[in-house]
C-alpha cells in the first residue's frame, strides 16, 4: 500500500511537469517611471517643479524591472548563493534577484571601507565597516525587496529581490519574459520596478499550453482582464 502510494506519488511527480503550462508576456512601460536626477538651479530655488535635464544619461527602464510568480501551489525554490559586488563605489549588479533562502555575499572590491546596510522590513541589517578584500554575507528568507545602501557612500544603492518561488526572471530589453513549467492554478504575477515599486496581477496558470500576459505599467485598470490571452 505504502509502496503503491509512493509509486503513485513518484508518478505524480514525474507526470506533473507534463501538466505544466507556460506564462509568457511583455512588459510595456508607457511612461517614464524613474525621476531622473535633478541638477539644482535657480529655477529649483524658485520652487518651479524640477524637470530632469534632457542631456542626462538615459536610464533603461527595463533594466530596473524584475518579474516573478507568487502562488501557494508553486514549487518552493532551490536556495542558491549570489554575489553583490562593491566596486568603484557602486553595487554590482544594482538589481539582484534571488530565490528565498539564498545567501548573498557582499565582497568589498574597492580599496577603501564600505558599510553595507538596509532598513528594509523583510531584512534589515548593517554589516558594519569592513575593508578591501573582505566579504560579509546575509541570508534572505522572506520574499520581498531589500534595498541596500552604504553608509559611507550615499550614492551607492542596490536592490535585492527575494522571490518566493523559483519562477523569477528579468525581461529582455523589449520587455519580453517567459515562465515555463508553471503548475496550473491561481498564481500572482508580480512586477517590481526599482523606482515605481510593485505591480501585481492575478492569473490562472493553464494546465497545458501557454497564456500571454501583457502588463502595462503603470497599471491601467481596464486592461487587467483583457490583457490575458490563452494560447493552446
Amino acid at each position: 500500500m505504502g509502496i503503491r502510494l509512493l509509486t503513485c506519488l513518484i508518478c505524480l511527480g514525474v507526470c506533473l511537469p507534463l501538466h505544466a503550462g507556460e506564462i509568457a508576456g511583455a512588459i510595456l512601460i508607457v511612461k517614464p517611471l524613474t525621476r531622473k536626477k535633478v541638477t539644482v538651479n535657480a529655477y529649483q530655488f524658485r520652487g518651479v517643479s524640477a524637470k530632469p535635464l534632457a542631456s542626462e544619461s538615459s536610464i533603461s527602464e527595463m533594466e530596473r524591472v524584475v518579474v516573478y510568480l507568487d502562488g501557494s501551489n508553486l514549487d518552493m525554490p532551490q536556495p542558491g548563493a549570489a554575489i553583490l559586488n562593491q566596486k568603484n563605489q557602486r553595487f554590482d549588479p544594482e538589481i539582484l534577484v534571488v530565490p528565498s533562502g539564498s545567501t548573498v555575499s557582499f565582497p568589498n572590491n574597492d580599496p577603501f571601507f564600505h558599510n553595507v546596510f538596509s532598513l528594509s522590513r523583510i531584512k534589515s541589517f548593517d554589516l558594519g565597516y569592513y575593508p578591501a578584500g573582505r566579504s560579509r554575507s546575509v541570508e534572505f528568507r522572506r520574499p520581498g525587496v531589500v534595498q541596500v545602501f552604504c553608509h559611507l557612500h550615499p550614492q551607492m544603492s542596490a536592490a535585492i529581490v527575494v522571490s518566493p518561488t523559483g519562477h523569477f526572471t528579468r525581461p529582455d530589453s523589449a520587455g519580453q519574459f517567459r515562465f515555463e513549467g508553471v503548475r496550473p492554478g491561481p498564481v500572482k504575477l508580480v512586477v517590481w520596478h526599482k523606482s515605481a515599486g510593485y505591480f501585481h496581477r492575478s492569473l490562472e496558470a493553464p494546465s497545458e499550453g501557454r497564456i500571454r500576459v501583457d502588463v502595462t505599467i503603470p497599471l491601467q485598470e481596464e486592461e487587467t482582464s483583457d490583457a490575458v490571452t490563452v494560447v493552446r
Partner: protein
Amino acid sequence: MPSLSFASRTFFLALGMMIVALGASFQAIRISIRNQVRANLRTSLVRREAVIERMRSSHGERIVRMVSVATDSAGLKAALGLQRESSFTRSPLYRQQLGRTLQNQLLELGPPLGFDLLIASDLDQKPLAAVVKAKSGVIPLDSSEIPISASSAFFPVNSRYYESIAVPINLAEEVIGWLTLGQEFDIRSFGEAGWTALMHEGRILAANLPVKLQSGFEHGWRRCIPTPEGCDIKVAGESFLALRIRASTIRGDYSLVSFQSIDAAANEFTAGFGSVYLAAGFASVLIALVCAALVARSAARPIRELVQSLEESERRGELVSNTRSRSAIAEINQLANAFIRASTAIRISQQSLQDAYMEFIQTMAQALDARDSYTAGHSRRVSLYSVQIARAMNCSEHEVETVRVGAELHDIGKIGVPDTVLQKPGKLTECEFEMIKQHPEIGSRILGRVAKFEVYLPIVELHHENHDGSGYPHGLRGDKIPLCARIVHVADAYDAMTSDRAYRPRLAEATARGILRDNSGTQFDPDVVKALLGVIDSWDQSSDPSRSLLSLAAQLKENTGPKAAPGEEESSYAVWPIGAGPDIS
C-alpha cells in the same frame, strides 16, 4: 461802476495775465518735477528689487547646493527608499514607521542646518515627516500639522508663515524625494524697507503699517493690476507705489507688497526747491509789475498826449495841427487825424449853415423890398447906416454884427401889412396907421419862432420906440430901449427921409439932417443922432462923392457876401444922397 483810467486798466490787465502765466508755468514745472521724481523713484525701486531678487536668487541657489551636499545622507535615502517597498504592503502602521524613521533623520539634520522647518517628502512632494524649530529646540511636527504639499514656497504652519526651498534628494541617477527647508517669515524684518504687507487673497495677513491705514491699502491693492513696475494707489490722500517683492518665494495666493510713499519721496526731493521757488516767484512778480507798468505807460502816453493837444485846441479855439506830437502808434495817429477831420467837417458844416442862414435873412429882406418898389434897398441901406453908426459909437464887433443883421430884418413884419395900406399914395387913415404900427410885433412874432433870431428881436420889435416914450408898440423910453434898436430907429428914419415915397418925393439931405437934429432928444436918441451926423459929415468931407459911394458899395458888397449881384447893388445906391425929406414911418 467806477471808470478806470486807460493806464491802470492796461496795468491790471497786463499784470493779471503775467501773474496767471507765471503761476501756470510754476505749476507746470512743479508737476513735471513731481512726475519725474515719481518716475525715478519707481525705476530705482524696481531696479533695487530686481537686484535684491537676483542676489537672493543666486544666494539661494548656493544654499540649495550646500544643503543638498549636507543632506546627502545614506540614512535619509535608505529611509526614503522604504516607500518603494511599502507600496506592496500598504499598511498604515508601516507608513507610520517610515514617517518615524524619516523624522529621526530630520531631527538629526535640523540643528546643524539651522533652518526653522524641515519637511521630508516623497517624489510628488507629499510630506512624509516634518520637524520645526521651537523654543525648546527642534521638535517633530504632528502629521496633521504638516502642510498638504511641500511644493509651495510659502505656507503657514501653526499660524506661522514659512518661506521654503525644496532641495531634491538624489540617489545615483534618480530623484527619490525632496527635503523642504523653511525659514520663518517675519514681517518685522522688513522694517527698514518701509511699509510692507503680506497679502493673502486681497487681505492683509501681517503688516508693519499703521492699523488704521490697512483697509485702505487692502482696497488699493485689490484694484491694482500687478505688474513688475508696480502700481500707484492712493491711501488717505497720499500716493504710494505698490510693488510686489520677493515674488519668487512668496507667490501663489500670497504676495508680499512693499508700499513706498511717492509723495514723501517727492517732497523730500522738492523741499530743497522751496526757497528757490519762493525767490523766483517773488522776482517774477516784481518783473511782472515793472513790465505791466511799462506797458500801461507806453500804451496810455499817446492817448494822453492826444488829449492834451485837443485840450489846447479847445483853449485856443482852433484845431492845433497834431504833427508836432505825432505818436509812434499808428492807431493813435489815425485817431487824431480822424478827430481833426471830424472837427474840420463840423466847422465847415457850421459855416455853411451860417451862410445858409445869412442867405435866408437876405432873402427875407429882399422879399419885403420886392413888394414895394419905393422901399427897394431900404433894408440894406438901413443896415449899412446902422453899422456905420454902431462903429462910430465904439460898439463891439459882435454888436455891430447883430445890428447889421437886425437892421436888414427890421421891417420884416411889414409882410403882414396889406399892400393897399403899405403902398397907399395918399394920407393914411387912423385905422390904416394902426395896421402899420403893428409891423414890429408881427416881425417879432415871425422871427420869434426861430431860436437863432432871438438876438435880433429887440431891433425888430423896438425900432419904432421913441426916446421920450412916445413910440410904439410899448412906449419905452431912454435907456429902456436897447442901443441897437435906437441905432436902427435913427438909421431907418434917415433913410426914409432921403428916399422917395409913394406919398412924397425924397427930402434934401440938409432938410433930413435938420429934422434929425430937431427931433434929437425927443424922438431920437441924441447920442445916436450925433453919431449919424458925424458919419454923414465924414462922407461929405471926401472930395469925390462918387468915390465915397463906390467905397460904400464895395463895403456893402463885402458885408453881404459874394452872392449879391454887383449891378443890383450899384443901382440900389444910385439914388444916394440926392433927395431927403422928413418921414417918420
